[in-house]
């Protein structure tokens, strides 16, 4: 049997073994004790040709309800935004996607520059001084930010709004349990953080206050006010943001955030059942040398020509080993490249327009839906592209009906907030047309 990914013919194998001076390939494995070897084939399905494989995989893919065939009004941390065609063309240039980390800068200038430009764009939209070249995803970026804030402040308490994505809260708890960090939650009122409650719980022991805006409910939080309260106690303010919203919303940097993180999937990355995604991570200059992850810096070569290198590596695990505060190394570079191409493709004006359309369309959907009998407003604060409504029927029942109509309905909030049973979190991106929204409204009207 021959495999197209393996070039050797049996004759070549023979001649290489001769050159090495052994009779058979088994001799090369002589160090492996006989006792632990497996002397039978692995129990795996037999090999498939490319054509058979593609057919098999299409069959598997077709067992999923995809967002091309169904209208998606589900968000909650993963978003159906339009991906410009150029993004896929750029990231599928194989000099990019078949490369690895830029350990040898002279042969990696293209990627280093692209990542440096990515860092620059993330700084620009978040209003921060420095961004790293990527994190695993939004949730782990939040946790890394919290761990960094604890390390820098020498404090072990994190305060997190209950309006932060529940998955992000859970990830922090997973990491915190082994580091003796304590987590305090702040309640919400009318869909945003209860500031009075924050003032009660924040103290000189607080390492950081974590706020998400737009938050899990889609509502816009008062980052500036919350930053002031955190700073008064010497705590850092970590803002978790939707990068698309920053097309119209004030940058968290301008509102006093010390660290800005978030999920970058909205910037040109397929929704792909939850990954690969992109955590972005930006901070003030003061925190630069404490940041996790790769950072690209500009420098010059021997002839004075501009060039780019991995820099500030003294922070990193391969040098710091057991002194490292993060174990993160290379992670989602190609997703960072996608985000950079996305931001360059939509450009200055398009970036504002995408955000504006999300806002206008979500607003329209909210207005139309809440006219229906059986749909009730839950909060009255401003929101961006997601909003909450209470239904007179169970969310699961409504969503099952919508699915039959080719619509993927919103997230059932009862799963995360026991007192929000019958509440649904709906998302409307710029990709939905008025006709799409009208269809949702008409079908909701039919079931409620």
């Amino acid at each position, binding site marked *: 049997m021959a495999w197209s*990914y393996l070039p050797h013919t049996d004759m070549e194998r023979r001649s290489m073994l001769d050159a*090495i001076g052994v009779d058979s390939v088994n001799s090369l494995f*002589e160090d*492996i004790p006989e006792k*632990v070897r497996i002397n039978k084939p*692995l*129990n*795996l399905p037999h090999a498939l040709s*490319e054509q058979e*494989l*593609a057919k*098999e995989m299409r069959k598997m893919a077709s*067992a*999923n309800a995809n*967002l091309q065939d169904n209208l998606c009004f589900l968000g909650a941390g993963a978003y159906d935004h339009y991906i410009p065609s*150029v993004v896929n063309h*750029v990231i599928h240039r*194989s000099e990019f996607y*078949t*490369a690895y*980390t830029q350990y*040898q*800068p002279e*042969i990696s*200038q*293209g990627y280093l520059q692209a990542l*440096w*430009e990515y860092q620059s764009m993330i700084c620009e939209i978040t209003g921060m001084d420095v*961004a790293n070249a990527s994190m695993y995803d*939004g949730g*782990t970026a939040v946790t890394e930010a919290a761990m960094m804030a604890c390390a820098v402040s020498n404090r072990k308490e994190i305060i997190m709004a209950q309006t932060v994505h529940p998955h992000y809260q859970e990830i922090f708890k*997973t990491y915190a349990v082994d580091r003796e960090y304590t987590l305090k939650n702040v309640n919400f009122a009318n869909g945003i953080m209860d500031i009075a409650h924050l003032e009660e719980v924040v103290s000189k022991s607080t390492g950081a206050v974590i706020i998400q805006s737009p938050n899990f409910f889609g509502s816009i939080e008062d980052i500036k006010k919350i930053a002031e309260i955190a700073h008064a106690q010497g705590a850092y303010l970590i803002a978790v943001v939707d990068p698309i919203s920053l*097309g119209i919303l004030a940058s968290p940097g301008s509102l006093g955030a010390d660290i800005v993180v978030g999920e970058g999937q909205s910037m040109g990355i397929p929704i*792909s*059942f*939850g*990954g*690969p995604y992109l955590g972005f991570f930006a901070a003030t200059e003061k925190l630069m040398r404490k940041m996790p992850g790769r950072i*690209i*810096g*500009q*420098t*010059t070569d021997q002839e004075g*020509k*501009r*060039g780019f*290198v991995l820099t*500030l*590596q003294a922070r990193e695990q391969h040098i710091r080993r057991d002194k490292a*505060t993060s*174990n*993160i190394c*290379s992670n989602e570079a190609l997703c960072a490249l996608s985000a950079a191409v996305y*931001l360059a493709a939509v450009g*200055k004006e398009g*970036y504002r*327009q995408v955000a504006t359309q999300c806002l206008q369309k979500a607003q329209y959907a909210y207005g139309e839906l809440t006219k229906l009998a059986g749909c009730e407003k839950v909060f009255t604060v*401003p929101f961006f592209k997601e909003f909450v409504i209470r239904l007179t029927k169970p969310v699961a029942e409504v969503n099952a009906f919508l699915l039959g109509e080719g619509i*993927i309905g919103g997230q059932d909030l009862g799963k995360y907030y026991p007192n929000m049973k019958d509440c649904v979190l709906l998302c409307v991106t710029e990709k939905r047309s*008025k006709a799409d929204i009208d269809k949702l409204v008409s079908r909701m009207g039919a079931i409620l």
Partner: protein
Amino acid sequence: MKNCKSLIFEISKPGRLALDLPPCDVPDCAIDSLIPSQFLRNSPAELPEVSQLDLMRHYTKLSNRNFGVDSGFYPLGSCTMKYNPKVNEDIAQYAGFAEIHPLQDAKTVQGALELLYNTEQYLTEIAGMDAVTMQPVAGSHGELTGLKIIRAYHRAKGEARTKVIVPDSAHGTNPASATVCGLETVEIKSNEDGSINLDILRGVVGEDTAALMLTNPSTLGLFENQIEEIAKIVHDAGGLLYYDGANTNAIMGIVRPGDMGFDVVHFNLHKTFSTPHGGGGPGAGPIGVKKELIPFLPIPVVTFDGNQFGLDENRPQSIGKIHSFYGNFGIIVRAYAYIRSMGPDGLRQVSEDAVLNANYCLSQLKEVYYAPFDRFCMHECVVTAKKQKPYGIKTLDIAKRLLDYGYHPPTIYFPMIVEEAMMIEPTETESKETLDQFIDAMKAIAQEATMNPEIILNAPQHMAVRRLDETAAARKPIVKWKV
């Protein structure tokens, strides 16, 4: 700046567009009537304004200043830079994989869950473990997840074990992951050939030992043949054995970590299972565990009741969530496709050819470069610049000279326990001709070292840039564009 590639910001011209957006077709409201002005941006973010062709040319030029496996030989040790099958890229883009939402009802994503479930089963078999979670998105993430599971296991037994034993030849992520997991690293000195010194190991294990982390084949590309004894020493002390799977490409279908006595193992799908390295991710670092550790796996766990696939979050002993959703699904799709393409015999052939290629390189290179270990290697080999040192040539210089010859250099200065190391991992997807040409280049450089060392010291000459000032970059960091 002198004769260099423009930044995207430098080619920006006000008013240019790379994308037409459809007009907004819902009634237009004044933005500040919806959101109070103190929450709004005063001026637009200064993103580039380029035409679509400007954009494509910019990134095409950048790609021309980069090097991937498709560009040429990339023998970066410990990274397994094998060919990335193109059909797997196509498959990952099928709408049924790329355009499904992670929070859709499980009934609507049965194909995706089946794919995750099957991949878990395949990796379980390949590693000889009892269960696998696909969630960790990188090798380092897998390490952290595995150590958390080990910690939770000891804690559940009421034991306060806080020390992780790590050989000094280990990847730097091993001790870093232990630290992030709140564990203390005990570094032990390896024997000269990178193997574990059993006496030292016996001396450090005890009732505080949580685990030993081991890479096997080791980071020197050698198989640790005392593995059964090592497993016994650690297990007798009540500790667990963690397998760093960076080097799994050497052993598929030949030996399994589970059979060697390991309790937790991580894989790097972007190494062994041919998913693209992406220029530094996304990859995936799933982990396999033995039966006693299954209750501690991260949530959600993919389930199958014989009829329907589902996601189980009700696992009281679980370490909890480690990723926003379920890991790097798009990467897992590619790895699944790879395993299906190769089948059991193909995977074994992969390892045999990977080991054959590394030994072939070693056999040819040891004539001119110092080979510190006089034995067969596994899928990668280590040689050093010891013989070139008298001419003032260091490993770094040889690496830079290889750039001029059109190769990506090997991993250099790792493992740290070998002076002036070059770790060469050819992988099984490279032909004999490619290896011969690389060997010739290495020999030519060795020749240059004696005849014309200047040419090596001044390398590279034919790249986009010459050697770069990394010290200046770190001392006065310029990490973003400023007008």
